[in-house]
């Protein structure tokens, strides 16, 4: 399924300064693997050493948090948008 992954500002330096990356994937996990395969430096910002998604980064498919769907197994549909939303604290 052709989907796009929106890269938030704090992570763009590690994703070749891109704000949007297109991948072909059937699940969220597969899409993120393709993303970190393309941009290896992104991996340590998204995943902890034990391979789990970090708690200060949320992933959404369209407007739903994957934690309320099937997490990385969440299936994707053509044209879905994956958003990576990190915690920011500026004020």
């Amino acid at each position, binding site marked *: 399924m052709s989907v796009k992954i929106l890269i938030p500002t704090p992570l763009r330096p590690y994703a070749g300064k891109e704000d949007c990356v297109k991948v072909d994937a059937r699940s969220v996990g597969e899409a993120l693997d393709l993303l970190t395969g393309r941009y290896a430096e992104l991996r340590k910002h998204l995943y902890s050493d034990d391979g789990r998604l*970090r708690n200060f980064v949320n992933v959404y498919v369209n407007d*739903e948090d994957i934690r309320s769907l099937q997490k990385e197994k969440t299936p994707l549909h053509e044209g879905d948008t994956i958003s990576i*939303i990190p915690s920011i*604290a*500026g*004020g």
Partner: protein
Amino acid sequence: MTTKLEPNQQSTSEPKLSKDEVLRYSRHLIMPEVGMDGQLKLKQAKVLLIGTGGLGAPLGLYLAAAGVGRIGLVDFDVVDFTNLQRQVTFATSDVGRSKLAAAKERLANLNPGIQIDTYETKLNSENALDILRPYDIIVDGTDNFPTRYLVNDACILLGKPNVYGSIFRFEGQASVFGVPGGPCYRCLFAEPPPPGLVPSCAEGGVLGVLPGIIGSIQALETIKLILGSGDSLAGRLLLFDALAMRFREVKLRRNPECPVCGDHRTITKLIDYEQFCGIRGEEAPAPAVTVPEIEPRELKARLDRGDNVFILDVREPHEVQICSLNGYLIPLGDIPRRASELDSAREIVVHCRSGKRSAEAVDFLRKAGFRKIWNLKGGILAWSDQVDPSVPKY
């Protein structure tokens, strides 16, 4: 003639508007969505603003303008020259003054009829519950993770809504936490990032007008909560990309497993938030690497002597436009890829703005085999202070 509320006069004992207030708020009163009922709700409302910086500026101004009867301000900082790019409650003449004193004066000038209370202290686990308790709504205008988690937890423990806003460079977030059945900040982000991963405004920069937009959104959400009208952001996370000029929203749900607002709560009192966020004392980036250093004056002496020192600048190209020591530019992120452009037989002094990034570069290059390499201690800022004051600081 303006009716002035005495500081110790409870606004709830005066449930009417004076003639002056009717005129002042006429543009609210003539809208059925607000009307006299709504304006009286605003007059009787008590809102606490935590932080009087970038977000706090539009918050204070718009809530005071709207006639919120009691506004509390929490901050302990002093107005800095670099604040004026975005903290629009302050004037140039306020530089050096306490932010609370300057903000209170500005808001009182805008609306002398409201009560403004100030708490000149760093909010912590010992004082938070007492400071928050008298207020109806808490607004998070802070700039660091420990305080955000502290405010969240205190609001949940006290049963008060927490109007959230945050910014980074040119992106912003906003939501409303802590309404009955709604999510809290921990439902959204269970843990903060490790210290040093997300730069502060001082380190990463911020578009000055951005907190003006997000702070105004927070003021709007606060007013809607007071009036009980419209759809609040509770249960939604508003995302703003200023450069793309795009608002998006994602759904936010209460997490039944949340330790502070979930069904089986394990956090029933305030904790050590610095420890929770992985830092001790002041919010600080990850400890700097230890590398050989050279003081600016010593570098100057060596250059004057005609020593063959190679100066490597690891800042970004847009920083070179601000000021430069005419070094050879390789931005820090490119060092691994471009280290071959450097001659390890030469003596190399590496600099950046303040000495942090250049320390990382020196560390990397030493591990790559460079032996005659030093970090310029304090960076170009220290060079400006100690050697050449004509070099602008930024």
